[in-house]
């Protein structure tokens, strides 16, 4: 049975089909939620709320976009809502573009991405670095660069203009790159 057939069954009230859809996407949704929330409990909560939205509105799903695209949109907005309700954390301002790119701070990088998943220490560094990035930048980076949404799809998913997505993406990439430079860059600077 393909995904469209499972969705059609779920729309007719087949609970086993709904359960199947949950199983198909729970790891994807959890992973995405964790990368934005950086907290296991919050990621779990976001995953639950995202699938609750899916269960409640599966009848309205027209199939014009992929179910995964729709789920990413829902989970992104849940994460952003949660971040807005918790404004205690102060993030580094990325307003000063000149400070983000310093040609004197360019080094060659030496990493083996294929071995990365096995390295818990490096995973911890990635967590710490992305935690410094404000959620509204994190979401753009995640949707556009990690999930492969187009700039236009990212803008539509989180209600931003295309120039705003480009600006946030540019700053997020430069910020993360700078923060990781001390971990991955050779000592010898150009």
């Amino acid at each position, binding site marked *: 049975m393909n995904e469209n057939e499972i969705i059609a069954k779920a729309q007719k009230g087949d609970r086993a089909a709904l359960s199947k859809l949950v199983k198909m996407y729970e790891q994807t949704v959890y992973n995405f939620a964790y990368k934005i929330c950086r907290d296991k409990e919050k990621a779990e909560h976001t995953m639950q709320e995202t699938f609750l939205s899916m269960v409640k509105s599966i009848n309205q799903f027209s199939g014009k976009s992929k179910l995964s695209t729709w789920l990413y949109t829902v989970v992104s907005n849940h994460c952003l809502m949660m971040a807005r309700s918790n404004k205690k954390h102060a993030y580094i301002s990325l307003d000063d573009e000149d400070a983000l790119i310093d*040609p004197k701070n360019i080094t060659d990088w030496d990493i083996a991405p294929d071995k990365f998943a096995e390295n818990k220490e*490096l995973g911890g560094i990635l967590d710490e670095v992305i935690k410094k990035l404000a959620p509204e930048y994190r979401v753009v980076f995640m949707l556009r660069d990690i999930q492969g949404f187009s700039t236009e799809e990212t803008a539509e998913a989180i209600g931003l203009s295309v120039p705003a997505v480009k600006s946030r993406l540019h700053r997020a990439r430069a910020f993360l790159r700078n923060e990781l430079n001390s971990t991955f860059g050779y000592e010898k600077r150009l």
Partner: protein
Amino acid sequence: MKKDYKITCKDVMNHICDTLGEDLNSPTCTTLKSHLDSCESCQKYYKSISQTILVYKKYELDASSDSHKKLLKFLGLDDCE
């Protein structure tokens, strides 16, 4: 971009951030691409931005079996296992 405009590495690095994954062959990118092709510093920057994206793509975390059970219970689908 005018041909006589003298671009700096910083211009190119800014542009890399804006256009990575997009069409570097568009007319406005030609001058910048030509700089990128011949500038070691900008190539290193381009590589480091690409690798930043790659390491976050590779870094995956799975939901535990406990999270899975809680999720199905929360949705009232725990009898569908």
